[in-house]
């Protein structure tokens, strides 16, 4: 038989055994890491442990009884996304607070679809001081203008990964959008309101931080596009339009259930 001659750089038998053992430990550790990550917490284990009754007189032995496999293996198909942030229409350059909700359902490994509703609200007052006392100063409201922008849309969202800690994602939506404007003059008692509506669209992209399988914190930039219209009053068929193109920045919670 031919044997390769062991040179000065060839490890000895003992060294090779230790390398072999170390490599096996590394492989075994790597394989068990995902399993440990998906193992339920200790308190859940404590719920599923029962004392064994097969040893009379001996102290009870804690034995783990696994939960029903159907519950453990079932993926979470639905998601609810709650978000808040700021929206700045391009033509007014005045950031306004916004809140939103997206209800989605998984359509594939990286794709989900559903419906979204947002609410952008802004209110401005014309005020004057009521007294000269120190501290928090009450103001007399002379007039007020307020506006609400409400899109209701269907959306698709793509997540580039479902396993990593950082999750880049992007989405697009299309639907209908309403803008309600209201003005009150509390000095004269006059008030006026107008509602504009039309088809509109949104697009967004961002980065999520996956905290666990059911919870993700999202940071995203969005763009809203639309030209909302109404029949101009007393104008024989002429139309009024308000452009609501603008960018937004929002933070959200994506909860799967």
């Amino acid at each position: 038989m031919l044997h390769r001659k062991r040179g000065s750089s060839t490890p000895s038998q003992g060294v090779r055994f230790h390398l072999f053992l170390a490599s096996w430990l590394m492989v075994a550790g790597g394989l068990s890491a995902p399993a440990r990550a998906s193992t339920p917490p200790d308190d859940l284990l404590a719920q599923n442990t029962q004392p064994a009754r097969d040893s009379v007189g001996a102290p009870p032995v804690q034995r783990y009884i696994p939960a029903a496999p159907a519950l453990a293996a079932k993926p979470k198909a639905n998601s609810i996304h709650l978000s808040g942030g700021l929206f700045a229409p391009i033509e007014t350059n005045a950031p306004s607070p916004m809140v939103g909700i997206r209800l989605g359902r998984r359509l594939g490994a990286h794709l989900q679809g559903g419906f979204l509703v947002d609410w952008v609200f802004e209110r401005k007052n014309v005020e004057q001081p009521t007294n000269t006392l120190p501290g928090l100063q009450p103001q007399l409201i002379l007039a007020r203008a307020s506006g609400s922008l409400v899109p209701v849309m269907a959306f698709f969202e793509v997540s580039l990964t479902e396993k990593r800690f950082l999750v880049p994602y992007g989405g697009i939506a299309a639907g209908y959008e309403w803008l309600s404007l209201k003005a009150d003059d509390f000095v004269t008692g006059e008030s006026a309101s107008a509602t504009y509506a039309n088809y509109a669209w949104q697009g967004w992209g961002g980065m999520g931080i996956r905290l666990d399988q059911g919870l993700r914190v999202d940071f995203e930039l969005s763009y809203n596009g639309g030209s909302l219209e109404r029949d101009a009053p007393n104008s024989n068929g002429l139309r009024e339009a308000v452009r609501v193109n603008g960018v937004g920045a929002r933070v959200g919670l994506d909860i799967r259930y």
Partner: protein
Amino acid sequence: MSPRFVARRIVPLLTLCLSFAAPAFAAPAPALGPNVWSMQLDGGLYAPVQGSGASPTAGVRYCKHFSPHLQGGMFSAWSFKRAKLEAPTGGQGSDSQVELARVDANLVPLMGFLQVDFTDRFLVPFFGFGVGYEWLMLHSFDHRTGAQEKARYANLAWQTFAGVGLQITTIWRVNGELYYNGGSLEREVRQPDGTVQRQAVDVNGVGLRVGLDMKFD
């Protein structure tokens, strides 16, 4: 890389990173069941943007833990602010002041909130958001005219907060956080001629609070 640079920059950075990775102390505390709740008692300072200076605040948060990283519940707080209008008494060499007017303000929010914990380690960065109702009671005394008035303002308001917690045991946690309170509280005043005036007080402001959080089931 100089030793001074390592001592001043690298070592604190590594210490911070390691503290994020360190698991919470495994104190011999009783294990919590699946339905975990927690209550936080906190205190700190709140400074309205339109007010003059900071005022003490104390609060309580009561919430359910939906997962190790998400909790939601209710919170309330109480902030007290006293502002005085004073003038020197006029005596030569005297620093004494005479009080001309005083306004006491009590601000009480009651809100539902969601809070996200980014880790379950020793150092726990977190943030949260609350929406609810807020009340402001103003009690003013004008000693120049003898006028005294109590007024109550209320409206929807919101808060957002972010901070870092120290998970001392599995049960106890110490939280330090910054928060922002936003709201314009209003009231209607009926005038003698029958008209209604609307008054508003802007209570936007920032605050700083430290809290002790206790988990239970």
